[in-house]
């Protein structure tokens, strides 16, 4: 709790219209300087190769005016609301109702997930979208093992996703292996890469670890782009075989599933199959994670997250503990990657950029770091929100960035804001969650 004493307490802050106006004016002035050149003047490469520019002072004025108005509104809201206190905003009965709903939310969501293909059978778009959401739920749960349970900050998770996807794509297109043979192989290969990455980072802590994983993710992507003879470079791999239902293809032909069952063929069958496939894979991830948390290794992960020094003092082998966390997380990433490859039928390095890693990490952190339900809800919110803004096209990532910043300021500990320890005292100690700080490392 350093330096909080240096700041004036919220109650001592001045109020009144003069103060609000002054603050809004300053904000508008800052906005004017910030946007003066970036918005006020638009540059473009001219037809002769030189640069031309034209002015957009109207846009600039509108933006500065928006900042001015927005600042007044925000300040008014803040004064009207008073110091933010959860208990005063949300009354007790509502809180208990929420916690009651929370208990039934997970089973309800699960039942709903099973029914999605039944309800939305004719809406291809929704089926596609729910497959995408489930892919991210699975990635989130996989990364949750590394970040949420073991507390190792991994900024290059997409590398394992890529390894899984390319493993399946290359094995299937070059050797004709089926999806069900490749799936475990993709997981094993990704886990292998996880261990390989794990070794150098064992001695690193916190932010060093973050940057090394980020560098690792970039290395994998650059190698994929440049190793053209194997991966096809930026053109990617196409013609990846579709999955079969344990050897029965989902095609209109005579040996297809539809013909065998004696029903009319429909392309939706494949979507439904893919949906249940990823649902099963995601649930497997969830189940394995929940089981692992009860095993000594899971307990060791959580202990490592809380305090590495104490872990070592208690005789936990931090090396193997970290490596298994990396390998387990990477394996699930590899599974998800193989699924991604078979769903798309085409993969290229474009799908495995840092943005993907950041998105998955954002899902885990917003989900509350370690909460399985939170991760699922966060994936639903993020991917759903992403789809809502699809029409905005180039503004989409801008909105995503702003949302990420605002969400962090609003709920730094995620939507479901606590990490439930697996082992705890029967009687809760009177320590509020905001006093419990992250252990260093």
């Amino acid at each position, binding site marked *: *709790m*350093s*330096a909080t004493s*240096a*700041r004036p307490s919220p109650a001592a802050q001045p109020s009144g219209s003069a103060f609000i106006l002054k603050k809004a004016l300053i904000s508008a002035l*800052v906005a004017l*300087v*910030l946007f003066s*050149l*970036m918005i006020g*003047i*638009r*540059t*473009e*490469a001219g037809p002769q190769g*030189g*640069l031309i*520019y034209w002015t957009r002072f109207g846009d600039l004025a509108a933006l500065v005016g928006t900042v001015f108005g927005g600042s007044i509104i925000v300040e008014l809201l803040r004064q009207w609301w008073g110091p933010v206190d959860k208990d005063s905003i949300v009354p007790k009965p509502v809180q208990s109702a929420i916690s009651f709903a929370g208990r039934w939310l997970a089973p309800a969501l699960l039942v709903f997930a099973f029914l999605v293909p039944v309800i939305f059978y004719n809406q291809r778009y929704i089926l596609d979208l729910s497959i995408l959401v489930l892919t991210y739920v699975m990635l989130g749960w996989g990364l949750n093992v590394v970040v949420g349970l073991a507390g190792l*900050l991994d900024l290059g998770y997409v590398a394992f996703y890529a390894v899984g996807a390319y493993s399946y794509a290359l094995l299937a297109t070059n050797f004709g292996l089926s999806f069900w043979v490749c799936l475990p192989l993709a997981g094993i290969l990704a886990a292998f890469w996880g261990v390989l990455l794990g070794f*150098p*980072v064992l*001695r*690193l802590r*916190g*932010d*060093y670890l*973050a*940057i*090394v994983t980020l*560098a*690792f993710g*970039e*290395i994998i992507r*650059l*190698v994929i*782009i*440049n190793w053209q003879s194997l991966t096809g470079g930026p053109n990617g791999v196409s013609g990846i075989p579709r999955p079969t239902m344990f050897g029965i293809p989902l095609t209109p032909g005579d040996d297809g599933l539809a013909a065998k069952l004696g029903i009319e063929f429909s392309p939706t069958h494949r979507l439904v199959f893919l949906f249940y496939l990823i649902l099963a894979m995601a649930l497997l991830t969830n189940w394995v994670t929940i089981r692992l948390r009860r095993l000594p290794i899971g307990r060791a992960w959580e202990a490592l997250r809380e305090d590495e*020094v*104490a872990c070592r003092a208690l005789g936990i082998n931090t090396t193997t503990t970290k490596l298994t966390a990396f390998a387990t997380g990477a394996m699930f990433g590899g599974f998800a990657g193989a699924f991604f490859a078979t769903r798309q039928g085409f993969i290229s390095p474009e799908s495995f950029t*840092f943005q993907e890693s*950041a998105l998955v*990490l*954002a899902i885990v*952190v917003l989900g509350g*770091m370690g909460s399985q339900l939170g991760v699922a809800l966060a994936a639903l919110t993020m991917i759903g929100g992403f789809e809502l803004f699809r029409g905005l096209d*180039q*503004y989409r*990532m*801008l909105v995503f*960035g*702003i*949302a*990420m*910043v605002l969400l*962090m*300021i609003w709920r*730094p*500990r995620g939507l479901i804001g606590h990490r439930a320890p697996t082992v705890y005292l029967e009687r809760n100690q009177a320590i509020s969650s905001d006093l419990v*700080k*992250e252990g260093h490392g």
Partner: protein
Amino acid sequence: MAYFAQQLINGLVLGSIYGLIAIGYTMVYGIVGMINFAHGDIFMIGGFIALISFLVLVSLGLTAIPVILLIVLLVSMAITALYGWTIERIAYRPLRHSFRLAPMLSAIGMSFVLTNFSQVSQGARVKPVPPIITGGYTLHEGAQGFAVQLSNVQIMVVLATIVVLALFTWLVSRTRLGRDMRACEQDQTMAALLGVDVDRTISMTFVIGAALAAVAGMMYLLYYGLVDFFMGFVAGIKAFTAAVLGGIGSLPGAMLGGLAIGLIETFWSAYFSVEYKDVAAFSILIVVLIFMPTGLLGRPEVEKV
């Protein structure tokens, strides 16, 4: 040998630019203890502002190149510094006492905001500028007709880096602000108790870091003759790599790391392959961290229980 000397010059110039960005990372990390992920994009914004102000000045009828360059430098440093200040105010200050990952994610979000802000406001196409500073010297005429060239731009980049670094070193070691910054780095609570305005010092750290990044952005514009909205990401990662390589938190280390990364990258593309130059830089980072987890000049972190 001539080829080697030429690559050495190129590497040092590139390394100077990386070093200038890396200082921003290392300063912020030293004081606040967070990776300012948006710093690479601050560098990109600095490049854009230099480009736009240059364009405006030329079309206003100014012809004296040194005057233009000086004004461009000051304008881009001032506006980019304000970007740094605003970002700290909006995205980092509310999260300063939050848990460790929160400011980092907020920074990643801010990085997306800046990248896409400049894409939306200035378009996605690469913005080329004609060479502003031309000419140079031939240092050595090789036997096979290969000459070692030292262009005026390269001299300017290195000179500007040295001047800025000298100013910056003076600021950190001799002024009141520098003393405050070092105090905050050691112990924020104690510094606050002794009358240091911690909030203001941290703000100034971001302002100075952003101004240095703006210098780097302008040098990049002059040296490569182009800017685009995505250049901040790769440059940012490499500069951060440089900061970690030199030992994060150490200012001479950041410069040293920057030069090292610049040289590694240049020599790798000269002697091995251009495609894998980034892979080489990142691999070196991993290798260095295996054997020297605190970087080249970093102090080992003492762990207290």
